[in-house]
């Protein structure tokens, strides 16, 4: 029975080729937008253990992390050219499809008893696998084990790739989600923190690539047509036909990749719609995991000058004047819109309302870097309770002083803004931050005031806040997709993954 290749196993093998290659290319795209692998959750400058970029940053002028992405070729990354939004769309589309199919595969393995093909009967299999390795090194081809279609070392490697490596990737992928990571901070810490988890995910990529290279090499060594016809017909009786059909399948996969690349590049909204259908049920559900980051202490905080930041501060004289004056007399936060009691609050007002409140949380940038910030400020639910949103209020909009064309050297567009549904605004660790670790907010981190949304990736925690507006619809603001990057690029408003 274990020497058979059931049709569902052969289908799964083919589907795996498609999704693993989509994962690899889209994962490389994601890596390329912050192409540095760190060990420390603080992502310190120069502290990376590996980098995958040819870009040297300027030595004296401030640079945001958003400028650290590299322009990868569309041959290795999907879709290439530093398009993180589309890379994430493809990665998460593949997650949904592949995980569902993987679960179905595991269930079928279990109920049919075929799981035994991947599970060593006893420890003797490991000894036999060592002997197989010696035979390969002696340029000999070890025979298959009795009752199995492959030898011992193949069984162990297939078992690793089918049973262990997917779990490794699912766990390390899931814990890069800000919603999951911040809802389970103890598990995140036990895994080594955000950057170690990212590194472990990268090593999973390397494991897949190494497996593919060795696997394809072994297929060719054992006879291409003979081996791939097992994946076509379930037997090796027709190696030529099997080889031709399998090769046609591979060509089809290549065409899927070409279509994916060209559609992402030329018609990105098509992929956005596909993503929204397949992935949004998950990202919507993840919103039900509020941040519970209460375990970080002062020792965990990234010192203020080193908390990484993306985006460039406002470059107007008005903002510079506020900076020079220390904000106290010049800055006023307006909160209005669909509320019973619009308010104008100075920083002193906000400090009185905050009454020493702070939270220490991990910042998860969509690019992949992280820092740990101690944010002093007012819980957003507290502010909203003061202004009393009217019945029918659905969302909260934050507007920034930052104008992307004027201020940022990486992006073009109008004023930066973000929106959040009321449920997200009312989460316990949604915060309006007016200080950092007992001092004022650094300019690069959003002085005098920024938002903290701890269930989402960092770009939704808008900086340099001008005013807050409660609304009953957000589709009439900007381009109607709920934020600057949502309007102008391929980023979903649901950033819980």
């Amino acid at each position: 029975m274990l020497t058979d290749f059931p049709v569902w196993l052969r289908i799964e093998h083919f589907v795996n080729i498609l999704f693993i290659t989509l994962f690899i290319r889209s994962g490389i795209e994601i890596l390329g937008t912050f192409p540095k692998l760190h060990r420390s959750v603080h992502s310190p400058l120069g502290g990376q253990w590996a980098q995958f970029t040819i870009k040297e940053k300027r030595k004296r002028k401030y640079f945001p992390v958003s400028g650290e992405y590299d322009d990868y070729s569309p041959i290795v990354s999907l879709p290439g050219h530093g398009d993180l939004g589309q890379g994430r769309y493809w990665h998460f589309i593949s997650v949904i499809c592949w995980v569902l199919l993987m679960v179905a595969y595991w269930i079928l393995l279990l109920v049919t008893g075929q799981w035994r093909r991947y599970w060593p009967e006893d420890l003797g299999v490991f000894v036999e696998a060592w002997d197989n390795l010696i035979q390969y090194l002696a340029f000999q081809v070890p025979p298959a084990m009795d009752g199995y279609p492959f030898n011992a070392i193949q069984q162990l490697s297939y078992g690793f790739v089918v049973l262990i490596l997917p779990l490794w990737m699912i766990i390390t992928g899931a814990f890069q989600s800000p919603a999951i990571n911040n809802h389970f901070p103890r598990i995140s810490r036990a895994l080594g923190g955000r950057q170690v988890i990212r590194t472990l995910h990268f090593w999973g990529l390397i494991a897949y690539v190494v497996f593919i290279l060795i696997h394809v090499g072994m297929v060719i060594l054992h006879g291409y047509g003979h081996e791939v016809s097992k994946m076509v017909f379930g037997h090796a009786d027709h190696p030529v036909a099997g080889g031709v059909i399998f090769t046609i399948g591979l060509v089809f996969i290549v065409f899927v990749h070409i279509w994916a690349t060209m559609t992402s590049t030329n018609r990105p909204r098509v992929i956005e719609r596909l993503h929204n259908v397949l992935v949004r049920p998950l990202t919507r559900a993840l919103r039900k995991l509020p941040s519970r980051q209460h375990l970080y202490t002062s020792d965990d905080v990234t010192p203020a000058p080193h908390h990484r930041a993306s985006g460039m501060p406002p470059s107007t004289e008005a903002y510079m004047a506020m900076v020079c004056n220390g904000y106290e007399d010049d800055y006023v936060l307006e909160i209005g819109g669909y509320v019973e009691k619009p308010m104008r609050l100075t920083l002193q007002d906000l400090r009185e309302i905050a009454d020493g409140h702070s939270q220490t949380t991990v910042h998860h940038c969509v690019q992949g870097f992280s820092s740990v910030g101690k944010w002093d400020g007012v819980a957003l639910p507290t502010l909203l309770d003061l202004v009393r949103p009217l019945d029918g209020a659905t969302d909260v909009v934050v507007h920034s002083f930052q104008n992307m064309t004027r201020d940022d050297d990486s992006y073009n567009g109008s004023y930066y803004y973000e929106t959040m549904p009321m449920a997200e605004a009312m989460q316990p660790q949604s915060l309006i931050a007016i200080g950092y670790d007992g001092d004022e907010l650094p300019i690069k981190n959003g002085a005098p005031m920024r938002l903290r949304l701890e269930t989402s990736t960092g770009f939704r925690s808008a900086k340099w806040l001008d005013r807050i507006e409660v609304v009953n619809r957000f589709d009439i603001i900007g381009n109607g997709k709920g934020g600057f990057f949502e309007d102008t690029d391929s980023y979903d408003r649901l950033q819980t993954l």
Partner: protein
Amino acid sequence: MSDAPAGVDINTHDWNRHVPPGRKRAPFFRYIRINLPRLTKAVILAVMALLAFCAGVVALSDHLPFVGGDIALWLVVALAGIFLVAGLVTRARIWDFGMVPALGALIAYLGGLFGTAPYVWNGASVHLAAAWNTMMLCGLAYLIIRWALAYGILVAHPDDQGFVD
């Protein structure tokens, strides 16, 4: 290290290293830089130790690759031994010297192809054949690592990539 293009002020502008004139991107391997100097040095020493061990196994066997093969292989073992001692007790950058035992192993392997190399089909045992081929693979691995060091992909202790951003 590739210099910044002419006219680029590196204090205020980003610049891309290793991009050939007229091209948009650098060669593929220029994008990979690993900064694990102690681990890299440990791997280099492990590769050389395995090379020496396998060469010694073949030298001690009764299936030499060619006449005088034992002398050649013991020479490889001795050179590898010097490399290992220097690598373990000093901070010297011995990577060029390591090419000598590595190339020596590969030359001995080539010599075996024209002689009576210990392959299974030549009557050698599986383990002896595996040792012989592993010696060759270690020699190749060392050449690749040496190239990666020179290319900037890897650094070995006491060197460092010098990342600052």
